[in-house]
């Protein structure tokens, strides 16, 4: 659509206004976390100084660093585990044509439309039975299970572009199947791994329902349910510390986003073309 023409300035100004409106709540979040109690209930007043008291309170009262550690453990654990099992399954789903693999493909596919809300209760009883209730391991397993269909298809799509001759010559050189996969194939699937991470890291980090249901000890809680509980337990009406802790919880993702933004669009394009 007129790709080579520069669009009008008026249109650009309009879009910039809309963009600022979209950014405003993020600015507001930041602003409220620095706003002195005196001005806190005046929505049009900006903070008069950098007031760090809410941050100090938040880190003390909420035990922010425990939450942060748990969130990092669960996020890295789930992404890492999903990458290991789904790269292997995606690879063979793309290479083998036998009936078993075609059925596995359909089995995974059906998982993409089934919502998990009804399964939460049986999952709860299962967790109790296998003694994984109230563990971060359980969260990793649940997230991994949820990722497997999407991640397998992603890896399967990227495997198609790797020439088979590579595997044949490697196995003629006496390379065993597992070494062949981890040493030769997996590194070539790096774009798939990157796409998977940058499109799914946010979902785990930001999830609060699963930890809310399956964890009940404060020392194991991840950040999002921790913030919700912190908010509900607060006696005072001043939400300053809640805003401060929200800023801290969002910050790692914003940093990650800043570094990966340009790959995000590329990753999605690759997924769309290959899928």
């Amino acid at each position, binding site marked *: *659509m*007129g790709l*080579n023409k*520069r*669009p009008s300035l008026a249109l*650009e100004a309009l*879009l*910039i206004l*809309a*963009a*600022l409106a*979209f*950014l405003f*709540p*993020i600015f*507001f979040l930041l602003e409220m976390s620095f706003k002195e109690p005196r001005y806190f209930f005046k*929505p049009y007043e900006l903070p008069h100084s950098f007031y760090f008291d809410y941050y100090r309170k938040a880190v003390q009262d909420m035990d922010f660093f425990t939450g942060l550690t748990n969130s990092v453990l669960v996020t890295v654990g789930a992404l890492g585990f999903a990458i290991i*099992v*789904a790269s*292997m*399954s995606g690879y063979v789903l793309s290479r*083998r044509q036998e009936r078993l*693999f075609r059925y*596995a493909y359909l*089995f*995974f596919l059906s*998982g993409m*439309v*089934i*919502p998990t*809300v*009804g*399964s939460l*209760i*049986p999952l709860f009883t*299962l967790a109790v039975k296998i003694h994984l209730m109230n563990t971060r391991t359980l969260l990793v*397993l*649940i997230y*991994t*299970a949820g990722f*497997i*269909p999407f991640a*397998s298809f992603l890896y399967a799509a990227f495997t198609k572009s790797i020439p088979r001759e590579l595997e044949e010559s490697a196995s003629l050189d006496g390379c065993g199947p597992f070494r062949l996969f981890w040493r030769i194939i997996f590194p070539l699937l790096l774009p798939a791994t990157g796409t998977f991470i940058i499109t799914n890291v*946010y979902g785990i980090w*930001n999830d*609060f*329902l699963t930890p809310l*249901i399956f964890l009940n000890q404060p020392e194991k809680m991840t950040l*999002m349910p921790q*913030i919700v509980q912190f908010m509900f337990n607060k006696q005072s009406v001043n939400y300053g510390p*809640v*805003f401060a802790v*929200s800023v801290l*919880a*969002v910050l790692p993702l*914003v940093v990650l986003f800043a570094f990966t*933004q340009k790959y995000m*669009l590329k990753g*999605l394009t690759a997924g*769309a073309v290959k899928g």
Partner: protein
Amino acid sequence: MSLSRKQYWIACLFLLPALAIFGLFFYFPFLQSIYYSFTEWNGIKAPRFIGFDNYRYLFQDAQMLDGMKNTLKMVVFGLIVQNPLALLLALLLNRKFRTRGFLRTSFYLPVIISLVVTSIVWGELLKYDGFINGLLEPIIGEAHVQDWLGTVSTSFPTIMLLTQWQGIGYCALIYLAGLQSIPTDVYEAADIEGAKGFALFRHVTFPMLMSSVTIVLFLTIVGALRLFDLPFLLTNGGPGSSSYTLFLAVYNSAFKNQSYGYATAGGIVLALFIIAVTVVQLGITRKREVEL
């Protein structure tokens, strides 16, 4: 054992971990939930088979009914508001604005903000004496200013609007990825043929974009059916049951009222909705996709 036989078994070994974890932690609980949906079960006593009673009761329960109504509203809203707006935004963001990088970042940044934080920020902005009402007062008059999330008639529409803060940017990015994968020679050919403006969009861009349309529609619908976090955190379904969604009604009957059997029946109805809509939607859009 022959070489090909051996290779087959090794491939099976590669598949096994994914199959086992997916089966045990995703599929098995789902299949169990089908059985539990026909029982009366509170998690303590053994489940008792009661046939279709749970399903019958679903359609008499105010929370479930309001939940279903609102969930359907969200699906329709997603299809006719979010989806066209996202496409429009993507078409704009694909043009050569001087501030293109800034624009793309601004519209996409809200997507990475967690719904917990989103509801904290918007809850504050939408307070009765908060920022939004201060802006609205001179425009719509003091008499019309209200607690948008605390009023029966406006609570759910407000939540639907809030979903757009993240929904539009998310869908626009997928459309943008689709737009960028259209080869430029298609446009060159269209230019020679003299196609311009809306005709160009209607006959060239849109058909080439159909696979993105399929993905976005799927994500919009499934996202709408799973709407839970915002109503849970902002209104907890209230006031009354005006902002319940089906997901929230299921959650509350399970983890508040311990009616596990009943809650799983609600979950199955939600699953049936999602599956039915997906099948119909894929049937319609897949046919129109153009192979590149």
